């Protein structure tokens, strides 16, 4: 391996990236866009569920229940409705996510100490939001029941009755339960994959299509030298993106970084090497930019976005899919990222993930070298 040749290729590739502001922009702008979107705009947290209320009872008891809903930050009253078609339309059109229907015998039943059912209609299309909203509704109802019980006690002049069970929630690692705290660390893995998908997957294919590869393979330039030379600029851009992400996480979003920063960067570099090599393999094998871009989307970006545990917990997936995620390197990197950021743990716990990641990185680089042939056909 001759450094001079590697450097010639690297400089070449670098000039190409700089000369095409779009590529450079993509390499920097898209990561920033992702960070901003996930930091500010995108969340699975549910708040302000739009609600319509059909209070058929219109009694102090029912109004008290309704105020329990309205007082909660989780619900937002859209309107009071007075008949079924009105309610149906509200939910059908999406104006309300949830409808609370209080039957007219509600007050009577509560006062006579019986069970008083109320109906909640929820738009189940978005099952996540629906589930969470239903959960909130249950909590409001429970709180109401407890209040009723307390009032009963006071009314009959009994002793102070204590609530039997007090639930103490403790959230470890992310006490404020800010979704951005767990999204931003994992996002770094996705950003790396995006760079790989966008930039390296096109590089070799482009040279085949334009004919410059034919010239290159007629020279003494070794395959491994070319690959390394092509990887270097994108590696630099990728590490710059990591720096950007960590900086934005720290200063803009105040995501706590409790673990070892050096370990973070080291793991990022290994993952990046693997991801870029994967992009390059796609480029080498397809020899067509159109095909490479499609394939890269499916093989690199999609799995890292959906199956790595970045957004959707792997534990919630069906067993068969969970097995598949073992093959996805982003999974390990996301675990490392979350661990380092939120749990403050290091290699003593994450040795397996780090090891597998290194294996992935090394194997990918090796595979790239194997696949590239200095021949036309």
């Amino acid at each position: 391996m001759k450094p001079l040749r590697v450097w010639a290729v690297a400089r070449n590739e670098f000039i190409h990236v700089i000369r095409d502001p779009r590529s450079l922009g993509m390499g920097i702008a898209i990561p920033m866009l992702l960070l901003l979107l996930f930091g500010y705009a995108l969340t699975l947290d549910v708040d302000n569920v739009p609600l319509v209320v059909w209070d058929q009872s219109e009694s102090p008891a029912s109004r008290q229940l309704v105020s329990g809903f309205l007082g909660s930050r989780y619900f937002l009253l859209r309107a009071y409705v007075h008949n079924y078609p009105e309610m149906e339309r509200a939910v059908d059109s999406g104006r309300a996510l949830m409808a609370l229907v209080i039957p007219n015998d509600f007050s009577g039943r509560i006062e006579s100490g019986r069970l008083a059912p109320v109906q909640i209609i929820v738009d189940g299309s978005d099952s996540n939001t629906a589930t969470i909203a239903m959960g909130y509704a249950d909590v409001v109802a429970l709180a109401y029941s407890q209040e009723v019980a307390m009032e009963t006690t006071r009314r009959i002049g009994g002793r102070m009755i204590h609530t039997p069970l007090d639930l103490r929630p403790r959230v470890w690692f992310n006490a404020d339960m800010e979704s951005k705290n767990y999204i931003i660390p994992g996002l770094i893995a996705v950003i790396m994959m995006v760079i790989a998908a966008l930039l390296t997957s096109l590089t070799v294919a482009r040279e085949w299509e334009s004919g410059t590869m034919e010239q290159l393979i007629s020279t003494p330039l070794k395959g491994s030298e070319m690959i390394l030379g092509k990887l270097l600029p994108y590696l630099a851009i990728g590490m710059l993106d990591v720096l950007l992400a960590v900086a934005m996480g720290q200063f803009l979003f105040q995501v706590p970084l409790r673990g070892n920063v050096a370990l973070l960067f080291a793991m990022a570099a290994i993952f990046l090497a693997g991801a870029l090599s994967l992009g390059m393999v796609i480029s080498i094998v397809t020899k067509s930019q159109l095909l490479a871009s499609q394939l890269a989307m499916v093989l690199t970006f999609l799995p890292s976005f959906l199956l790595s545990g970045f957004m959707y917990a792997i534990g919630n997936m069906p067993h068969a899919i969970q097995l598949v995620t073992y093959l996805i390197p982003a999974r390990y990197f996301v675990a490392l990222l979350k661990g380092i950021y939120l749990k403050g743990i290091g290699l003593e716990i994450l040795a397996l993930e780090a090891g597998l990641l290194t294996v992935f990185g090394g194997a990918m680089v090796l595979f790239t070298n194997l696949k590239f042939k200095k021949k036309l056909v």
Partner: protein
Amino acid sequence: MWERIKHMLIKEFIQIFRDPRMKGVIFLMPIVQLLVFGYAVTTDVKNVATLVHDLDNSVASRELVSRFVKSGYFSVVEYTDSEDRVRELMDRGKVGAVLRMNKGFEDDLRAGRTSQLQVIVDGTDSNTAGIVLNYSSRIAGQFSTELLTQRILRSSGPLGQTGRVVVETRAWFNENLESRNFYVPGVIAIIVMLITLMLTSMAVVREKEIGTMEQIMVTPITSAEFILGKTVPFALIGFADVILITLIGVFWFEVPIRGNLALLFVATALYLLTTLSIGLFISTVSQTQQQAMMSTFFFYLPAVLLSGFMFPIANMPPLVQWLTYLNPLRYFLVIIRGIFLKGVGPSILWPQLLALAVMGLLTLWLAAKRFHKTLA
């Protein structure tokens, strides 16, 4: 005129399908995405791995734990009395929840005092954590309310009968709250956009790059014919994908389809108008295939993220919500979900249909104008 368009179509199809791998990508990609979104992407939380840290070990504490288990949401993987074990399993991410009761739990309950249940959740996935806490609240709340009514009855006799609210929930459109019913119809929208955007923009630019564009332009073909010739194949592929995904979605994933199929195709056509125009527009601002791909991605990624496909628009900051009004994907998703899940028709969906139509015509006009200009 039709003759020329027909020939352009044939040429385009030959070019697309000459490479067998292309066929694979066009038809395989939707299937892969379907599989992922149908099976893997789920926010349903069930069988959360739970560690029980019960230092009281009494009838009452065990009863509470069994309530959690019976709910189906929690799955106890281990019982321990070691603080270190709690720390270890949480650090390693082996459990999503820890139920902790201190010594004296039952005594407190018997004596009418308040006893504590600590639920520790892993905040590294705060969505799941929130749901877990919510389940815990409900289970603990029910346990508590039952005990409370018993206590009141005991101390005050029959007078102490206290009313309780019982919530009966009905989920409309998606009774079992299956994640896949939410995502699978949405996959249609994002796949169609990706295919038409990327293929259209790159196909046109490819001709620019190779130089065949110049050759075609010398012929009597008009730019309108050229545009049609370039976009219609991808529109057809888009429709084919809609059919493919709908079939798989309905017959394999058992996603309901309650609305009007004809409406689905009309809406798809309007949607395609926009996406193809955007693809065309991208081709006019790109000189190389690489640039086309980058620009496509730069548009596509925020379009998907800010469409309501995965992340509810209602939960976005107001400014961002306003931005989504410019996103054709947003309207198409409402229509798609409306047709599949809600079974509603034009009477409810007309605003979205109108928006798509307006957007489609506007973008087409813009794209065609720019296309004509860059050629002249």
